[in-house]
């Protein structure tokens, strides 16, 4: 599955769950994973504390310069439409950063604005 990373200044489990409520079927696992289903596909939102070990140093610096001690969430998806639904719901927040794993790292509202303004944007086609 593809992954969008959301960096937050603290644990956002409750916020994300609340923001997704009503948009589709939500299932919460014991480990905190929230599974969103909209009839098209599944999107998994989960805290991921090993993401920082996957980033190149400059990429990690870009994030930690904005959020000193980020908590990372992975948004795992296969279907870009389902992912756009989830991202626009949970990331429209000035306190979070969105990293689409294809070279774009933006504050949440800016990323959401890009998503909303470009209906056909499938960033999986973008070279990181």
């Amino acid at each position, binding site marked *: 599955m593809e*992954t969008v990373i959301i960096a937050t200044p603290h644990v956002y489990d409750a916020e994300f769950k609340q923001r997704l409520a009503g948009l589709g079927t939500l299932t919460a696992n014991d480990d905190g994973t929230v599974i969103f289903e909209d009839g098209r596909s599944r999107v*998994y939102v989960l805290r991921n504390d090993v993401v920082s070990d996957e980033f190149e140093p400059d990429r990690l610096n870009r994030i930690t310069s904005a959020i000193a001690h980020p908590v990372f969430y992975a948004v795992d998806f296969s279907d870009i439409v389902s992912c756009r639904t989830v991202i626009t719901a949970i990331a429209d927040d000035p306190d979070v950063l969105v990293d689409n794993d294809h070279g774009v790292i933006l504050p949440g509202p800016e990323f959401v604005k890009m998503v909303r303004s470009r209906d056909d944007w499938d960033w999986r086609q973008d070279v990181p």
Partner: protein
Amino acid sequence: MPALLQAFVRLVALKRLGVLLFVFAATVCVASTASALEPAQTKTRIQGFDFAEHNSYGLLSAATSRKHQGNQLAQSELASNSPLAAEASAARTFASSDPLVADLANAIEKAYPGHVVGVNVPMTDAAGHLVTDADILLRNAVIQVKAGSGAGLTRQLARTQTATSLPVIGYGPRLGGTLVQNIGKAGGLVTRDQQFLIDVVAP
């Protein structure tokens, strides 16, 4: 004379019983030996379904029933003894909402017809919880695919592994160096090379 004949008949009857007993004992013996020598089974849990497969691909083809909730486009399940099975298997094309997944699944299917079980397959852990989707489920491995630099892959491989005893392999043509290095150090399987991957997952 009749007494001799009766004794002969009894002897023959006993011999027949003996033969039957021998055949029965041999059957039991062979069955238990076969059970002991059988390769360890691998188990893959898919939402709403549980199936066990042998490690050996050769043992799979006829015996294993397969069901899953993955993308079932072009995955019509023909009986293995159907005269059309081989032809249909060779012609299968997989579709996915993730373009790279479809491309890779079809490349594998082209190389080894019938080897791809499904794409975007929901996987469950031992407790029955949905843990992730397998991008590509093969008969002998699970592949998680990344088009980008691979963020989240480490955890995804680990989560997938909780749902299957098949090897789980990470693939992405643009995976980052740090990520590949760290997954490798941790004993995980990951590659950027599609042809290498196709060679590795050969049935």
